[in-house]
């Protein structure tokens, strides 16, 4: 008899790394090599003087796997710090998406109304299409995309989730 596997959870990790060649490959390779899930990934330099990049990675796993992810990330030499934001406490999570919607007539007007209600901004408008920019939680963006589908959505790009701990705590 196998014990039932514990429920999986979604966690947001912040990984501070030295900005050096190959560091992103090390992090991603760890996930693929050990069979961990990557739900979302965002990376950019956050402090050029200290050559520091920050990777935000969202993963889904059992508590044991999530603990392993943190420990395994810490083994990577150019990784300076790993924080499991979700385990640490309340976080602000935001993601940005650009959504291209094609249409004319009523559906075009409807798309504008939906965008307004969702606080999405039209960043490009041509006679055939809009590009909307929306920022929100991953769930809010999912909702917006679902609403736009019947209104002529033709292309989507998402930034991946960013996260910070609430309050004055830092990584």
């Amino acid at each position: 008899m196998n014990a039932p596997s514990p429920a999986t959870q979604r966690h947001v990790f912040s990984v501070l790394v030295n900005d050096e060649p190959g560091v992103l490959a090390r992090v991603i390779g760890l996930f693929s090599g050990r069979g961990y899930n990557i739900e979302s990934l965002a990376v950019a330099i956050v402090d050029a003087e200290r050559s520091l990049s920050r990777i935000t990675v969202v993963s889904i796993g059992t508590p044991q796997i999530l603990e392993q992810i943190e420990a395994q990330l810490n083994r990577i030499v150019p990784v300076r710090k790993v924080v499991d934001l979700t385990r640490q406490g309340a976080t602000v999570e935001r993601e940005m998406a650009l959504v291209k919607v094609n249409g004319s007539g009523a559906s075009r007007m409807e798309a504008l109304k939906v965008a307004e209600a969702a606080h999405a901004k039209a960043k490009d408008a041509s006679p055939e299409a809009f590009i909307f920019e929306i920022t929100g939680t991953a769930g809010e963006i999912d909702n917006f995309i679902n609403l736009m589908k019947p209104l002529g959505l033709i292309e989507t790009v998402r930034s991946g989730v960013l996260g910070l701990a609430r309050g004055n705590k830092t990584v």
Partner: protein
Amino acid sequence: MRMTGAEIIIKALRDQGVEIIFGYPGGAVLPIYDALFKQNDIRHILVRQEGGAVHAAEGYARSTGKVGCVLVTSGPGATNAVTGLTDALLDSIPIVCLTGQVPTHLIGNDAFQECDTTGITRPCTKHNWLVKTPDQLARVMHEAFHIAGSGRPGPVVIDIPKDVQLAEGDYVPPSMVEHPLYQPKTVGDEKAVQRAVELIADAERPLFYTGGGVINSGRRACETLQKLVKATGYPITSTLMGLGAYPSTDGQYLGMVGMHGSYESNLSMYNCDVMINIGARFDDRVTGKLSEFSPKSKKIHVDIDASSINKTVVVDVPIIGDAGTVLDQILKEWQAKGHRPDKEALSKWWSQINQWRARKSFSYKKSDKIIKPQYALERLRDLTRGHDTYFTTEVGQHQMWAAQFLELNEPHRWMTSGGLGTMGYGLPAAIGVQLAHPKSLVIDVAGEASILMNIQEMSTAVQHQLPVKVFIINNQWMGMVRQWQELIHGGRYSQSYTAALPDFVKLAEAFGGIGMRAETPAELDGVIKEMMKTDKPTIVDVCVDQKENCYPMIPGGRAHYEMILGDDQDISTATPDEGLVLV
């Protein structure tokens, strides 16, 4: 101080105390070989294939506790090294491997003998670097030795383009290089040590379970382990990697644990109430069926690598730190609190263990007509007793028999590919050991299939006058493959018989070594004694019983109490359905 990249490399190696480097030249490392040519401090050992160089460096590293060094060319030189690097990663062996690379302006052009070395070796090294300017070279070299040798040891690769070897840069000595990013924690948390000692003191059915981490920590860690085990009077078992950390002839030692471990070790693992894991990682070869692994025990786990904690087995008291340092802390705390073992409980536990021990799980049917493989190992053990001996092995049945039957009373004298299970490891490893210990007896316990995977290294041994002994347990089968085919594939022997084996005696002679053969039990002692006296690389072809299998055995997917013993007749139903997918 200005010098060329190649000179920086040699100077850094010298400043790191490197005496021997194993390698094979090629176009992309010619400047380094030229710099080697112009000096006499570092001895280069020319191997016959780059994989052999890494295994030789592993043997050197494991038998000395030092970092092993390798130098290979770009492309195929680097890809041939990959197996050895992976082997060193899984067994936590410190290796610094220098690879040549095509010049920087050709990188990415699919140039001749170009490969993405840092890309290929990223998952099989602890860390790697591509050095693009000679000014970075000294710093990276020193950092490489620091990372390979400290914390949980492992292999690192430095990829050096040919133009970087030729250009001039500044040298910095090791003392001027700091390592802010890599400072592993060695001292265990004091509170956790106290909790551990309380658990150890209150135990009624305790068991020490120790692994390669103790040996990697060093001789002093092994001595402290022995003191602690003696102070408590508790039983101790070891992983394949940990053999020799505690003397195998001592009465408190239960033999190896795991798939082919002793009956008493495995049943003690299953039934103990406190497990003290020091420097072992709950490998699947040790745990068997995870859901039934040691269900009644509180577990203490000492490991220098935080990712080993709770990876497969969730433990009660994790202690992150160096095995030797934490053992010191535990022993000190044990003495400071004036703990005494619970004599009554302990004597009950020992009488239970002695009942299991009486089962004599390594026993086999003796024969005076045919050499049983176990008998060959017993005779090798008895005849080498008292000699200054180092053992390496290849991978398979012979390896498990060697682990079961040889006496290993000191650390650093047992070199085997545990994690990766690399056939072909033993001969090059023996070469590395012999170089580090020129006067000692170095024996590679081999199988006839494994030895052919790196047989070319006989030529290395002959060239460098290394009198390694290759003791082949020759049953003409890939014995462990065949054993599993009997176990779970209805005895359908798909490709596990090696037809057309070479004549190993003639093969040894063709290489310029000595060949011997033993075909009957009566001949065996004489051949072993003769082997021990030779001053040249020697192959001994021991023709053993072809049918013998390796017991005891815990089949895949089974728990510790479900061992198959040698006198059980039918093994074909021993593996549960869910065990069929396991390796």
